[in-house]
């Protein structure tokens, strides 16, 4: 298996997503990879008028705290559910060759076996998937 050159990480601003982002940044640093930070815009986000405009800044702050040059990290919004958008990022050129997600994002019910984005990705992805558990204390510390 070759080193990843383009990593996509799912990001919804949760503590789980922060942990996944930190891991992706660390991996990118050691592999000299680029990172695409992807936020999936779903139906409810629009319906509930959730404000996600702060997410790029939240990501930029974590990138700044890492050793990775900011120019190698890109942020994007994409319409769809997290699984679909991440799989799309791993299929369309320039395709990602590693997917990183947290064990769960923002949920109301706590996330159950079926439908957990991480497990759905593991089942459907054609590239490796890293599922990052939530760390105790400050992520990445």
């Amino acid at each position, binding site marked *: 298996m070759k080193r990843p050159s383009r990593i996509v990480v799912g990001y919804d601003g949760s503590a789980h997503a922060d942990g996944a982002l930190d891991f992706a940044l660390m991996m990118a640093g050691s592999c000299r990879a680029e990172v695409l930070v992807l936020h999936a815009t779903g*139906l409810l986000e*629009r*319906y509930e008028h959730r404000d996600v405009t702060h997410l790029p800044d939240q990501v930029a702050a974590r990138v700044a705290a890492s050793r990775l040059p900011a120019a190698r990290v890109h942020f994007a919004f994409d*319409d769809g559910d997290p699984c679909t958008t991440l799989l799309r990022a791993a299929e369309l050129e320039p395709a990602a060759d590693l997917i990183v997600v947290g064990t769960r994002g923002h949920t109301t019910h706590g996330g159950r*076996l079926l439908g957990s984005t991480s497990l759905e990705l593991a089942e459907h992805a054609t590239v490796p998937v890293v599922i990052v558990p939530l760390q105790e204390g400050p992520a990445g510390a």
Partner: protein
Amino acid sequence: MLITHEILDSTGHEDPGHPERPARLDAVWAGVADLHLDSDVVRVPVRSAGRAELARVHEPVYLDHLGAFCFEGGGELDPDTYATYDSWPLAQQAAGTGLAVLEELHRRGEGVGFVAVRPPGHHALRDRAMGFCLINNVAVAAAALRSAGERVAVIDWDVHHGNGTQAIFWNDPDVLYVSAHEWPLFPGSGVAAEVGGLAAVDRTVNLPLPAGATGDVVLQALEEVAGPVIDDFDPTWTLISAGFDGHRDDPMADFEMTSGDYARLAAWVRGFARPGRLAIYLEGGYDLDALRHSVAGTLAALLDAPTPLEDRSQGGPGVDQVARIRTERHQTLQLVRAQALGEAP
């Protein structure tokens, strides 16, 4: 004559505050009542779809997992989509009732079918729930017809692209999928260059239109781009994936359509659908008043039933987009056909 079904009690599938809620069906049936059809309505019993009927379009392992997930109490399937303990039997009933209406239509040989069930279906993939959808009801219906040797056109006018239906029939030359939808918007698919798989080239027609599009633009796209494809396909059955979230009052999207526009779209479908071989399947629509009036407008146009309608909307953006869609489809079809013939580099 309206061929429909007994009212499905869907109150067991509810997540407080979620827009895909039982009251949607109340609004739909209120829209039907507004037409005062009286004796011109036939209601068949609600029935559950069998495993074999569902397995035509869904992976058996997905059906097993969904059933088990619900049996254990349900929860979130993705950030948009929920299931409860009752969702699995309700989803089976939603899909099965769609089949029961088709069977009654077939038996009578006349009338218009109307399936008002939830949860909706057109985002559901073969192996995954998505976008409020668990089982792809219209796909289950289309697959049943397909297995009986029919050629089925699915006309999807929900404001969101029906990615699940498209994916399920991507390589099936006997199912034509047509979608007019807002783009960019969830689920992110449905660009004009998606024209079908190598075994079903030109059996997918996507009409992605900009926010603000009005009914005249949606109709123009359907008539000018999808119309010739439908004529060439000559469907023996036509199913409408009828979402009403393109209404100007709907909170989910930014089309500017009215109940008068849905009546006009329905009249367009009526122009090519064979008599007694047209059925409507409810998808989205989340503003209850808009849903009620749009259902009434749609059925009024199909049944010649008088009802007050909002004025048709016009003058919105997207006319230029229709020309671009036609060009993009033409170029893609040339490439894909060459690829299918092994001529592509």
